[in-house]
């Protein structure tokens, strides 16, 4: 122990540095475990799905039933059992236990398990042949009883919409399934619950029951499971009947996201169901699931999507890349430490110390480093998580998988450190036999390179295969990408090397020609040649690669938002069916300050034939024309920022001329010309002002070449419609408001619009979460990559600083030269110029990105990015990135300068090696 303490004291600085490096690398390795949660391809798909559905946001309608039917977010377990149903009382606890074990999630929002039978029931005043008798867990029954009317000493509770329901003794008749036998029983029902109250106080349960054809039953009677079982038990036993079981589980949105949309959901859902069934079977051996819950099963289908495959691959590659690089850097770090201590280690071995003791030392050192690294991870993980919350507004979930993954990372770290130590010991023993200069130390030095590469590749394949749940196709894609990226990285590295070496060669030749002594800057450059190549590689490749991705993701998210608004026209749409509503709604909208402006569009369609029942008088017979009535002034002001010049194929748009109308290209193909007159039923005549090429945003999506479409002044269309007594139209209000104020505006509009009664059709609001989702899905991986890059950078920087200056000949030589008084200023200038070049190159990459994104890509119709769509936050992101990069460069060079500044020349003189 004394010896070990001495050794620790001797190596403490090194061990601390190694712990720091390993800590950073461990943190990056653990961080990438969270990527599937944050950059989840299923969530991405979910957002894209919502996006492609058009109006994906809040929507409500005057028809209650419609919105009621819209919800489909329960898991329904349809099952049966033979012996008993009392175990259903434990169903809730079992579901929770299984979801904790499989997903790490606590307490679903609601779990209801019940058994039901259809019976015929009657009492003195009422009779029905469709009574649904439901057995409920006791706790749920008691809470229902609490809000019910009547006597609580009751066998059951009847749900009714009349308070005059007859209470008391009820007789029931139950026809035994598959036979003609009936079984009669009696219940004393002294309590009832009004349906409205039931719906209000137990909305989720009510929704559950509605799934079981609640409307078809004339009466709904709820009773405790115990009583229910007691009644039916003898019959079931006698006729070998089965108990029908239904269980409803409602998970929260957050839980659903994790369960259905997580990267490994197919596997987890499978294990969840398996566990649930086995747990239930443990209580009731005859429990059988008839149908698996459909939502849960969806994750299986989703996972087969090729897009998901690609995104999975991207995530896996990031993970594998980070882990491989971590392993490589850790092995190199330990090797570097060992190399600098070779003589001391040799002396220890020569002293004849037993191998057991030596292994114990190495074991304890590895343990200390691993513990130190873990401590650093614990200290840094919290800020890392906070950073995600700040940037992306997302949260981490420490699922079982994360804990297992983190433990594996830690075990791999420990094993790697210990095995590198032991590998060095083998080297030392080889050296003792073959001589000190017989070989240079390299990890696994005795193994042939081809063999090392082969083993590495097999491990990579195996690793990828296991990560992909043994999916050959995904493994193949990922390996292909890894090899491709590997080749590109090597080419890039060698290109950089070639460039730097080429510059030096040219310089040397030039010097030789001119026969002048080398400049100070050139001498410094020559000394820093290798370090500079590495630095250029790291900065230019890794960081600018990440920054480009950040650039595109940010602006693409903006672009989606803007193009969405461009296509859809506004953030809130109100659809109504009555013309008088225009007068009622207008002042209401004008009075609310959050609504910046709005416009109404009157939409109708008509046959184009000349008779008294059509609106338009043309020579075209029996063709449908779509008519849009719009105030020209409103319309042109509504999107004054948008460039309108592409809208017309021919003609001119004016906002003031009320005698003009604009028609689709279809009219042109039917030989209509600009200036032609179109006559309406009221005798009014309008001149064609232009042919529309790109369809105006407020007038839905139609094909201008194939449809007959007319845009005309709203007042004119309204007059004609009134004259005709026509009601085949709708009025849409497009409201322009700040996205942040959407929710407040809906709350303001909702009661008023509902007050319009039947004529109000629906209100749809743009759900900004869709864009937030896209932004998050795009940005989070980039931010994580950037952060991981930073940690790597930290680890790599420390790695470079690992050896004492006196032990590193290259750094020593540079340090000796750089710190001579007449070289200090040129050295500082060199570092400054380096910073400026790297920063300028980042700026250049931004500039190139900018031109490609906003000029080239839109020109070749790859991406329609509009400058107008760029949000302030995106600009802020870019500026932060740029500043971060500049700070990083300054800190790195500052530290490098400080390192040389601290050189003690006398030390180097005294210990020249």
């Amino acid at each position, binding site marked *: 122990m004394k010896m070990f303490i001495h050794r620790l004291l001797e190596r403490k600085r090194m061990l601390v540095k190694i712990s720091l490096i390993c800590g950073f690398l461990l943190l990056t390795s653990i961080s990438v475990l969270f990527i599937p949660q944050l950059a989840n391809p299923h969530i991405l798909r979910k957002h894209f799905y919502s996006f492609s559905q058009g109006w994906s946001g809040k929507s409500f309608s005057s028809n209650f039933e419609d919105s009621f039917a819209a919800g489909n977010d329960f898991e329904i377990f349809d099952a049966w059992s033979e012996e008993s149903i009392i175990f259903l009382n434990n169903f809730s606890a079992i579901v929770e236990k299984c979801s904790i074990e499989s997903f790490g999630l606590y307490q679903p929002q609601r779990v209801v398990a019940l058994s039901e039978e259809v019976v015929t029931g009657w009492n003195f005043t009422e009779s029905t042949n469709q009574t649904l008798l439901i057995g409920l867990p006791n706790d749920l029954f008691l809470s229902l009883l609490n809000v019910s009317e009547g006597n609580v000493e009751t066998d059951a509770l009847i749900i009714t919409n009349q308070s005059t329901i007859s209470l008391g003794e009820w007789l029931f008749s139950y026809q035994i399934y598959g036979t003609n036998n009936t079984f009669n029983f009696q219940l004393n029902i002294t309590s009832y619950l009004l349906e409205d109250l039931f719906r209000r106080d137990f909305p989720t349960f009510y929704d559950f029951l509605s799934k079981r054809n609640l409307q078809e039953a004339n009466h709904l009677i709820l009773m405790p499971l115990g009583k229910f079982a007691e009644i039916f038990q003898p019959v079931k036993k006698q006729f070998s009947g089965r108990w029908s079981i239904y269980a409803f589980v409602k998970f929260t949105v957050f839980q659903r996201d994790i369960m259905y949309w997580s990267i490994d959901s197919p596997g987890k859902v499978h294990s969840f169901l398996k566990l649930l069934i086995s747990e239930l079977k443990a209580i009731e051996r005859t429990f059988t699931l008839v149908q698996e819950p459909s939502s849960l099963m969806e994750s299986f289908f989703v996972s087969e999507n090729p897009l998901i495959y690609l995104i999975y691959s991207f995530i896996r590659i990031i993970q594998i890349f980070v882990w491989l690089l971590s392993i490589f850097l850790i092995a190199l770090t330990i090797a570097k430490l060992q190399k600098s201590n070779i003589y001391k280690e040799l002396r220890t071995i020569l002293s004849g110390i037993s191998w057991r003791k030596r292994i114990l030392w190495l074991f304890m050192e590895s343990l200390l480093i691993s513990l130190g690294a873990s401590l650093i991870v614990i200290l840094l993980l919290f800020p890392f998580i906070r950073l995600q919350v700040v940037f992306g507004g997302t949260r981490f979930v420490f699922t079982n998988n994360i804990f297992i993954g983190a433990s594996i990372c830690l075990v791999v770290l420990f094993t790697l450190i210990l095995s590198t130590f032991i590998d060095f010991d083998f080297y030392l023993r080889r050296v003792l036999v073959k*001589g000190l200069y017989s070989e240079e130390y390299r990890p696994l030095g005795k193994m042939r390179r081809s063999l090392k590469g082969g083993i590495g590749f097999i491990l990579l394949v195996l690793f990828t295969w296991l990560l992909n749940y043994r999916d050959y196709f995904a493994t193949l894609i990922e390996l292909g990408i890894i090899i491709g990226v590997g080749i590109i990285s090597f080419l890039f590295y060698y290109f950089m090397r070639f460039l730097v070496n080429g510059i030096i060669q040219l310089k040397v030749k030039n010097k030789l020609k001119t026969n002048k002594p080398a400049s100070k800057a050139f001498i410094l450059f020559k000394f820093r040649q290798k370090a500079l190549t590495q630095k250029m590689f790291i900065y230019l490749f890794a960081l600018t690669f990440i920054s480009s991705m950040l650039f595109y993701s940010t602006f693409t998210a903006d672009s989606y938002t803007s193009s969405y608004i461009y296509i859809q026209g506004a953030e809130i749409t109100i659809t109504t069916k009555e013309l008088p509503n225009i007068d009622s709604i207008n002042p209401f909208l004008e009075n609310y300050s959050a609504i910046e402006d709005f416009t109404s569009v009157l939409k109708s369609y008509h046959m184009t034939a000349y008779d008294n029942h059509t609106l338009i008088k043309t020579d075209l017979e029996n063709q449908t024309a779509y008519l849009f009535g719009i105030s020209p002034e409103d319309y042109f002001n509504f999107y004054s920022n948008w460039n309108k010049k592409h809208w017309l194929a021919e003609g001119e748009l004016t906002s003031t001329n009320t005698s003009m109308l604009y028609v689709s290209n279809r009219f042109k193909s039917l030989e209509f010309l600009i200036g032609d007159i179109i006559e309406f039923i009221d005798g009014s005549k309008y001149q064609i002002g232009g042919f529309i090429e790109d369809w105006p945003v407020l007038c839905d999506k139609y094909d201008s070449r194939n449809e007959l479409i007319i845009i005309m002044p709203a007042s004119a269309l309204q007059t004609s419609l009134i004259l005709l007594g026509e009601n085949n139209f709708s009025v849409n209000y497009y409201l322009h408001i700040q996205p942040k104020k959407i929710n407040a505006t809906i709350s303001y509009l909702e009661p008023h619009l509902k007050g319009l009664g039947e004529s109000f059709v629906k209100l749809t609001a743009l759900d900004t979460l869709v864009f937030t989702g896209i932004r998050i899905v795009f940005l989070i991986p980039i931010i994580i990559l950037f952060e991981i890059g930073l940690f790597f950078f930290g680890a790599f920087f420390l790695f470079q600083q690992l050896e004492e200056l006196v032990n590193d000949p290259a750094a020593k030589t540079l340090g000796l030269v750089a710190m001579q008084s007449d070289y200090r200023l040129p050295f500082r200038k060199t570092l400054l110029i380096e910073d400026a070049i790297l920063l300028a190159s980042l700026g250049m990459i931004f500039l190139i990105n900018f031109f490609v994104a906003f000029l080239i890509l839109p020109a070749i119709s790859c991406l329609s990015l509009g400058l107008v769509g760029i949000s302030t936050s995106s600009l802020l992101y870019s500026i932060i990135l740029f500043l971060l990069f500049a700070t990083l460069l300054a800190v790195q060079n500052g530290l490098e300068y400080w390192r040389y500044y601290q050189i003690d020349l006398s030390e180097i003189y005294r210990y020249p090696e």
Partner: protein
Amino acid sequence: MTDNKNNSNIENKLQAIEITKIFPHPVKKETNIAIFAGASFEMSAGNLNFIIGPSGSGKTTLLRMLMGIEPLSAGEVFLNGQAIHTLKGKEKIDYFKSVGYMDQFPARYLSLSLSARRNLTYSLRLYRKTGREEEKKQVEEIATTLNLESLLNQKTLSLSGGELRRLALACSMIHNPSLLLLDEPTAQLDAENKETILTLLKKLNETIRSLIIISTHDMTIIEPATTFKIEGRRVIKWK
């Protein structure tokens, strides 16, 4: 030092017979470079034995060969009649324990961040298990012998070149070796420090019975009668 007195009746003697050392060429792998070819010599305790030769002649390699960490290409080496070139396993480890070695760069073997006392204690503990009191006594005894008493609690990094050499010397012999190999013990030292080291070595030679072999290219410190010169891949007696 106490053990040394008990071993005083053993005469440490080293014999090298026809030793050859061949290294592969660092660039042209197919060709070899011979450092020694059939070199024979004999050294015994009682005198300071010097090995001289120009830089790169193989002085350090010879010391390593005698130490047993550089294998011979051919030939034999005996210490007190025991063949050391054939040693393996535990026997080899036992032999290592009986050798003390001081490198020409002391910083390689010493922990510069620790005190001189800790370095000495560690060196002793590496080879021998003793009680705390005994350990302290031995450290102080060797420190007195090599004039290091006042430096014991100083950080090794703060020692001067001469002091560092003395400390390295103390560390290499604290376990009382039969064979003490000193590689350039006076390199980079001024005349005064050189004199101090030489005086100490002579004093040591009188008090301990170890066979001391010193490699040097400093002709001012040698004793011609016991000096061997590396010349023409052989080791020959200088005078």
